[in-house]
């Protein structure tokens, strides 16, 4: 346990030195506040782009605050997920160059401690980024569109974060036996495949973690629709990824 804490500390120090702890949250805030801003200015943007049929802008109705907030969270499913996955792809694969292997040789450290410390560090970045990003988006949405339910927002952001954590954990697992870029590719592919399968067969696959995004949007706009199935399966998936990555990591078997 103490080893794990030390390793976690080292991971956090590393993400601070590489500015990851700053730039990822900043990008999430920008993505978050861009959604309410572009929605608010949409008539002007359309007008400025020209050739808008007359009468079209009269029919434009500003979407409600909850809808805009749900869309803002949806922004994190694409660029946000890409950033997080690219950030985790080298975490196990790149260890040979960053010196943890020497530490392992000098001192017996359980593979599970390394993997969990890395996972916890990724989780910290994710929570910081999503928390600040959602807060920024919510602030802008409240100012421009109207009041939001903060309890719904917290639940929706939590569900979305769980989905992102699934993708991060999958990539962490893949990075235990593949090179970084391949791990990132497979992680994104797995997440995309889950979403696609879920959108093709929503009733049969309602229990998969991929339905967390839809659940998050519904939670935001209607304040209901919570189901334990996807949450439970997301938890199982995450734990399984961390456990499998620990099993795959042996002292001399880290991919380069």
């Amino acid at each position, binding site marked *: 346990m103490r080893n794990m804490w030390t390793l976690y500390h080292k991971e956090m120090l590393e993400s601070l030195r590489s500015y*990851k702890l700053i*730039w990822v949250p900043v*990008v999430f805030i920008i993505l978050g506040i861009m959604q309410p801003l572009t929605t608010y200015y949409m008539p002007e943007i359309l007008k400025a782009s020209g050739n808008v049929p007359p009468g079209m802008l009269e029919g434009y109705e500003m979407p409600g605050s909850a809808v805009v907030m749900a869309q803002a969270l949806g922004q994190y499913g694409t660029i946000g997920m890409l950033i997080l996955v690219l950030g985790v792809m080298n975490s196990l694969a790149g260890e040979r160059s960053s010196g943890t292997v020497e530490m392992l040789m000098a001192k017996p450290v359980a593979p599970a401690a390394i993997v969990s410390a890395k996972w916890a560090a990724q989780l910290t970045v994710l929570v910081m980024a999503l928390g600040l990003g959602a807060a920024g988006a919510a602030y802008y949405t409240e100012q421009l569109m109207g009041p939001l339910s903060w309890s719904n927002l917290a639940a929706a952001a939590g569900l979305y974060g769980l989905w992102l954590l699934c993708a991060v954990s999958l990539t962490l697992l893949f990075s235990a036996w593949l090179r970084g870029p391949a791990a990132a590719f497979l992680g994104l592919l797995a997440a995309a495949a889950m979403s696609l399968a879920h959108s093709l067969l929503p009733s049969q696959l309602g229990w998969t973690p991929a339905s967390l995004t839809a659940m998050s949007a519904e939670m935001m706009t209607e304040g209901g629709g919570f189901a334990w199935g996807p949450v439970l399966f997301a938890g199982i998936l995450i734990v399984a990824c961390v456990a499998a990555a620990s099993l795959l990591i042996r002292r001399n078997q880290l991919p380069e």
Partner: protein
Amino acid sequence: MDEIKWGLIGPLLALQALLAVIGLISLGKAERTRGPKWLWVIILIFGNLLGSVAYFTVGRKDN
């Protein structure tokens, strides 16, 4: 467009500038990058949000 509300747009521009500055600091310290450094300077300054994201995700070699 009647007038730009700087109170709304300002924070967005400030955050993007912050991102570019952090990128430039990191670029100054970096020993090796993928591709020439001057190119990344241009991308960071003119590339907006995506330019900075590109630098932080694929531009750096160490770490």
